[in-house]
């Protein structure tokens, strides 16, 4: 039996990696992946807590999140593609028409 602390520790580390990645990386696809990592870190936490409370609610929430994340990624990649068509780049630093 894995103790709850380990599960939550893992999820916190994943979440941290996700946040740092989303904030520091410059490639759009990598940022997208980092955001997915944040959502999945929350999923891990939900599953850990659901077992701790011996409930199904947390796991149902995870199902919802997975579905929503898929929709989000589809839209996100669509946006990245329409940008790529106009700009030929997936680097956020090239996307700086709007400032101040």
């Amino acid at each position, binding site marked *: 039996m894995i103790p709850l602390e380990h599960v939550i520790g893992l999820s916190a580390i994943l979440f941290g990696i996700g946040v740092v990645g989303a904030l520091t990386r410059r490639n759009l696809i990598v940022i997208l992946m980092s955001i997915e990592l*944040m959502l999945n870190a929350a999923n891990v936490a939900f599953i850990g807590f659901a077992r701790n409370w011996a409930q199904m609610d947390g796991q149902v929430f995870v199902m919802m999140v997975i579905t929503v994340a898929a929709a989000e990624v589809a839209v996100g990649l669509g946006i990245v593609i329409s940008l790529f068509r106009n700009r030929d780049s997936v680097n956020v630093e090239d996307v700086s028409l709007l400032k101040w």
Partner: protein
Amino acid sequence: MIDVPSLDPRAILPILMVSIGSMVVLMGEVFLPRLRSASGEAPSDQRIGAILALISVAFLLLAFGLAAQSVSFDGIHFNPDNAMIVLDRFSGFGMSLVSLSALLTCILSVTYLAAMRINHGEYYALLLIATAGMMFMIASIDLMAVFLGLEIMSIPIYVLAGFDRTKLRSNESALKYFLIGSFASGILLYGMALVYGATGALDFKGIGTALAAPGMADNTLALAGLGLIIVGFGFKVSTVPFHQWTPDVYEGAPTTVTAYMSVSVKAAAFLTLMRLLQEAFGPMLGDIHLILWVLAALTIVVGNVMAIIQDNVKRLLAYSSVAHAGYILIGYVAATGTAEPELAQNAYQAVLFYLLSYLFINLGAFSVLVALARRGQDCDRIEDLAGLAKSRPGLAALMSLFMIALAGIPGTAGFFAKFFIFKAAVDANLIWLTIVAVFGSLISVFYYLRIPVAMYMREPVGEAPRPTTDFGELVVLAVCAIGVLVLGFFPNYGLDKLQMPGALDWAQEAIRVFYR
């Protein structure tokens, strides 16, 4: 044998109307172009757009009516055994607010979309889906429903922001909104996970009960979760320091979309946060009072100061909307900082009134920009507005009205909105915050008045503005101007014949849901 839960579909009827509307619009988009008139002509793009807008307006009107009617409801749960959605006075108020703003946006968009050559029917479908998501979120009494509603709202708006997909600015706007928005959802979700871990419940009532247990009010896990949830909502309503996306997204998105999201997203997120704080985190309100105080003060100062240096009207309005988020937040600071339910009730009532007035004011201001847009080109720099009083006196007068309403000058809705908020703040002993807010308003007068000054005192430069205003735009402008003036002179004006309560009475009824 599986137990079938007892469901009460009346609770989701307004949401259902909007969702069905979105599907009808999508179907219409497919089948309308195949219709042929008697002479064998296919309908023009513009006509299809107008028909789809009409369908959306019809469904939104239904939803608005159903939601507004719920002023007299005492709350119906969709599933009484395991409630996630509730239609009570509060959700009724919020739902009518967002459906009204979506309705006005639909009417406003017809000509603009054609002028920008982005006349695709999906626009209306996405608008309706986003509205359904907002209504879902406002009505939710469970973290799962909040998250789902939030995403149903956000994802279509990411697309709408990038709707002008051949323009780089629109792409950039969509991209920034998407990245920041999904980052914020991630943070919010993690906060929800922590709250679930601390309390073992996802429904607001369960969380509230768990937190009320002795020793739970300063549980680290729950506090961290609440903090992350506030950060997530902070991104959505654009409070400083989570505001950087706002000007870029507002500037790059098509103007009708900017109008819609500046009003609706803010209203939906603020209303959801209100129910969440009140029903789930009641025992912890004292702990977050200071955080909200700092957020509100920062938001007012930064929003107003940054607005001064803007040359683009959409950007200026974006920073002004940041500042207004700060004023609205004062209502939350006042409500969380006082032990007397009556004062908290007044503060929340002021917030609802503010959101309603802000709908008319901001939608009106953006409608003027929409009405000025030329073929394929937005008219959004301050110099584009120079000399407008000579060429388009009516529009110039309306724009001036909306600007002084944003500044909060008496006689307009903006005055009473600010007055009620400041009064609630003073009653709750937030003297310093009120001083900051009043100074912020003073600064704001300066930049809001730059626009009337440009319109009335400078000579026109460049191309002449569009000579006529279309019927739909006129309707929206008229509704917004009447709303601003009526709320400005009679903040509690109601229609007895239609059994419509005045705005203040309505807000009070809505808030009473939390204090029983």
